[in-house]
């Protein structure tokens, strides 16, 4: 952060005057379903008056796979692989949210080593997810190179995940009652190695992408969302923190071992433009990666030998009847699982409260008034994963 913030709030009225002077007929433009900037099969119907958007409407459901209906038809343990597939960039966190909800119904707490392992994996997965988010955001606004740099570090992380659970994308590793199996020998040292590498590489993304003049021009003052709007519309995660709201479930609803870790909640501060613009959301993501590394280091220092899974929970799970809602801080916001059980092997309701779904719902209201060329920048900064909006 060498350069001082140099920004001027946009002169909204003058721009309006210019544009209204040359009023044209509204044009409807289909963005998607096959558009690289929508990150999946999302169709946004944009209505533009010249270069300025006057309306937007999202059409989703192209990737609807009935996850919630499936959840009412399979066992508790059998549903676990399906949770991988909502937000396929942060499967560990999805598994975690689901497992915590089932454990709440069961009333069991995972042994300490299991909790530390889960925390390490959730944080590593957050880094992997943010790397893709920031990298692909670069592509959205025209910078291709940073994406390759981001994927290089992600590759290291995926190797780590492959070593511990055998899969590179859909992990199915964290399961109700613990984790599938303990970390192999030497794995924790590899994680420490990754932390060191990442600390060195992080300034590269910062200088290559976030400090780039074109990036700043494309994102600062674009798609500004005031804090009140973010709260009203239920935004969570970097979308909410980018608007300056100091809220993080890891600190404010501490689960696993987060209460013992020392970390800072990164909040947008209008570093390059107005508070709550696209730049701030990426700013939050960038610094969150560093905080995650910090947390992983603390976990590595504190982790002890011991059991990783609760001995009472086997592959057959039959929780006491009841209902449980557990929301955790996913890379994209609050991922909640609301599980209703009637005491049998199969759940009565398996609700997934998806962060991308909610964060996308506000985009319709941020887009009007922006330039057409900024639509990709705003949708990209929301960082949606269509697997999760549609489930």
């Amino acid at each position, binding site marked *: 952060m060498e350069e001082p913030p140099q920004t001027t709030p946009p002169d909204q009225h003058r721009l309006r005057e210019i544009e209204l002077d040359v009023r044209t007929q509204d044009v409807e433009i289909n963005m998607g379903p096959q558009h690289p900037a929508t990150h999946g099969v999302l169709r946004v119907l944009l209505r533009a008056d010249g270069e300025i958007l006057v309306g937007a409407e999202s059409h989703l459901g192209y990737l609807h796979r009935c996850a919630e209906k499936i959840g009412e038809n399979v066992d508790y343990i059998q549903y676990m692989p399906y949770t991988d597939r909502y937000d396929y960039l942060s499967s560990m966190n999805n598994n975690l949210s689901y497992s915590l909800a089932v454990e709440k119904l069961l009333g069991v707490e995972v042994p300490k080593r299991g909790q530390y392992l889960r925390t390490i994996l959730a944080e590593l997965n957050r880094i992997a997810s943010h790397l893709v988010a920031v990298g692909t955001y670069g592509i959205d606004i025209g910078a291709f190179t940073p994406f390759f740099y981001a994927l290089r570090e992600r590759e290291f992380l995926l190797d780590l995940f492959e070593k511990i659970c055998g899969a590179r994308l859909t992990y199915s590793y964290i399961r109700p009652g613990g984790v599938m*199996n303990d970390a192999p020998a030497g794995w924790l040292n590899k994680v420490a190695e990754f932390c060191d590498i990442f600390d060195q590489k992080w300034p590269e993304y910062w200088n290559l992408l976030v400090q780039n003049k074109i990036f700043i021009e494309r994102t600062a003052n674009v798609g500004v969302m005031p804090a009140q709007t973010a709260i009203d519309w239920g935004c969570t995660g970097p979308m909410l923190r980018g608007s300056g709201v100091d809220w993080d479930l890891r600190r404010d609803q501490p689960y696993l071992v987060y209460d013992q870790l020392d970390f800072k909640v990164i909040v947008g501060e209008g570093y390059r433009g107005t508070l709550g613009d696209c730049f701030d959301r990426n700013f939050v993501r960038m610094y969150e990666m560093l905080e995650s590394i910090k947390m992983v280091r603390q976990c590595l220092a504190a982790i002890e030998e011991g059991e990783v899974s609760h001995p009472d929970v086997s592959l057959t799970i039959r929780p006491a009847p009841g209902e449980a809602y557990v929301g955790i801080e996913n890379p994209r916001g609050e991922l909640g699982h609301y599980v209703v059980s009637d005491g049998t092997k199969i759940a009565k309701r398996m609700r997934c409260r998806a962060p991308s779904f909610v964060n996308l719902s506000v985009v319709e209201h941020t887009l009007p008034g922006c330039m057409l060329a900024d639509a990709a920048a705003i949708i990209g900064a929301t960082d949606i994963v269509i697997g999760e909006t549609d489930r």
Partner: protein
Amino acid sequence: MATPTSLPETARRSYWGNVWSTIKSTAVGMGITFRYLWSKPFTVQYPDEKLTTDERYRGIHYLEQDLCICCNACAKACPIDCIEMEATRHGKELEWHQFDLDYQKCMFCELCVYPCPKDCIHMGKEYALVTEDRGTLNMDLLTWQGLTEEQKVRIAEAEAKKAAKKAAKEAAAKKKAEQENREEA
């Protein structure tokens, strides 16, 4: 809800300041990429070079057929019912007809491996499942079909043993009956 529209910042900042910051940030970026110009590439040429998969890798399954007892535990554990197996029992020996795993459905979750009582189904290290024909994805995991020669020998032995036992029993019963007859007489 209307949000503020962005005006290009350029319009309100000094022209030369902008030129300078653009050149500077481009130079910084170029400096980073320049450093990697002579370093070794991180990528591999995929079909020619392959990365090794890890010990725990969850790839295409393999089955230790001689251990399997056709108990259907893995098929029941599967969330999408993609395993189908069929075998006829000849005493202790199994005559295998099919052990199909449908890789169009399989999501490589490893849930079939855990409940196996004989620990005979495993996830392998193979991963390339590229095909031009979907039908080939419904794979048969069996290494042999029907009965092996050894099994046939064992079945024959077992049957011979059984027959001998039966004959011995019958002979004993006959003897007994004869004795009884004699006593009666």
